[in-house]
């Protein structure tokens, strides 16, 4: 593995290249800063500045439908990420120990929810739930929403664990078995610790995907349950309120803070691990 250190022949980008990247970053951030600015605007206008206020933040926290949606989103994200991570870990270990003849088609099926358009996944799951619901007498709601989230989360967990399993030294497991470990013990004592970074990575991916999903939730949640993205969509379909801007600001700052914390931690860890360590998979 080559590292990315700049070799002598590759010149660093010039002023032109750098201003181009700066422009693209401006393109990516300008809308967000506009949202943030107008969350403090004293009237509903989204383009004329009329004065500073914090009223929209206050009314945001008093808005019970937004807060309910927020809790629903959080509960669904936590449960679905945990379940998907457990299921995905077992599935990945299982797939890994299969012969290629079986593994390849199963991995293809595993990849379907990732490759497919969200709307197709949403529609197909909703048809399944509606049909099952008619037989088993249940309706779309929190349960179907959660099942849908688990379903689209597992493939990402599997995918983030598989590379770790490939790196895993099979001799370790064999050695453990030779020393009288049962397979289950070997699984807990040898495999799981080795693939832990992949598991954690999968958990984080699953959690963020679940928090962010709109399309699949929209088709599988039914009319009673609303996640935050669904609530935002409903808000944009109605009289638009700067509460949306206030919400954006809070979310943006939360994510920014999280990323900074993660980044600082990572760079500290990297310093601790000395430089020769493999850093292929982040």
């Amino acid at each position, binding site marked *: 593995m*080559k590292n990315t250190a700049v070799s002598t022949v590759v010149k660093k980008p010039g002023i032109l290249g750098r201003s181009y990247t700066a422009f693209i970053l401006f393109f990516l951030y300008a*809308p967000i800063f*506009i*949202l943030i600015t107008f969350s403090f605007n004293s009237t509903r206008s989204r383009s004329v500045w009329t004065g500073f206020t914090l009223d929209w933040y206050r009314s945001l926290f008093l808005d019970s439908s937004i807060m309910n949606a927020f809790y629903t989103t959080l509960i669904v994200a936590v449960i679905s990420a945990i379940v998907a991570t457990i299921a995905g870990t077992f599935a990945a*270990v299982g797939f890994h120990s299969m012969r290629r003849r079986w593994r390849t088609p199963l991995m293809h099926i595993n990849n379907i929810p990732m490759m497919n358009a969200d709307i197709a996944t949403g529609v197909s799951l909703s048809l399944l739930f509606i049909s099952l619901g008619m037989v088993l007498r249940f309706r779309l709601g929190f349960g179907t929403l959660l099942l849908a989230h688990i379903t689209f989360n597992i493939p990402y967990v599997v995918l983030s664990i598989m590379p770790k399993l490939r790196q895993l030294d099979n001799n370790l497991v064999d050695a453990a078995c030779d020393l009288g470990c049962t397979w289950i013990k070997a699984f807990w004592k040898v495999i799981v610790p080795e693939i832990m970074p992949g598991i954690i990575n999968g958990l984080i991916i699953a959690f963020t995907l679940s928090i962010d999903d709109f399309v699949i939730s929209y088709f599988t949640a039914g009319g009673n349950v609303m996640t935050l993205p669904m609530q935002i969509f409903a808000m944009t379909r109605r009289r638009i309120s700067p509460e949306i801007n206030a919400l954006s600001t809070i979310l943006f700052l939360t994510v920014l803070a999280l990323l900074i914390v993660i980044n600082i931690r990572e760079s500290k860890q990297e310093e601790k691990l000395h430089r020769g360590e493999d850093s292929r998979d982040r």
Partner: protein
Amino acid sequence: MKPKYFSIPYIVWMGIFVVAPIFFVVVYAFTTADGYPTLQNFAAMSRFTPVFIRSFLLAFISTVICILIGYPVAYILSREGKRVQRLMIMLIVLPMWMNFLLRTYAWMSILENTGLLNRFLAFLGLPALNIINTPTAVVIGMVYNFLPFMILPVYSVIVKIDRSLFEAAQDLGANNFSVFRKVVFPMSLPGVLSGIMMVFVPAVSTFVITQLLGGGMVMMLGDLIEMQFLGTAYNPQLGSAIALVMMFIVIVFMYFVNRFGQSDEKAVGA
């Protein structure tokens, strides 16, 4: 107990929640509302040809723009120092963590007739632009939302290209441009291909961006499907048929994109 059995629960799960739903889409697509087999859902589809054409055209345009804008960013980034690279990647990922509905909504405030862009133009004494509720607005929304999906895979491939190849090429007399054309670009194609997948598929099936920025005037496949399931025309059978055809065309498209990519790689290898 052998470890390969660990995956049995998930295989059952996939059977129920991944394979069966697709089976349901197929069944719905080929039945009437009363449950009789039929082909009429597909026969009725020719009416939607303009929607299909518009969806694929706008998604195609957005994907091309994403490549044109995003590739240079990835390339320039890959030549920066490691610290800068890391920071820039974080900056590119950060907006993706904010809900995409909110980001699209931000563009509403910018592009509206009385929005910020037009106010700015008026301030400069320039004529107003009518962008909101047009296909242009939808393309802008798609490029904005999906651009990071193009930059990141391309970047991650370019950054792994073995630098000694550049040296070798330069030793053989290639100038910077031909190093790029003959070495970097062909080797970065896998990244471009996965970028295309990650941009094109969500773009062709979006209904959120069209509804926020298109004002109900720019209908795409996503809107059409949503309308059959949740909207003003309840017809899940027809909706399933449309979704099925959409998936089929996407798969065919992707197959050819991949074929093209592979043959190119081979040409380079030869």
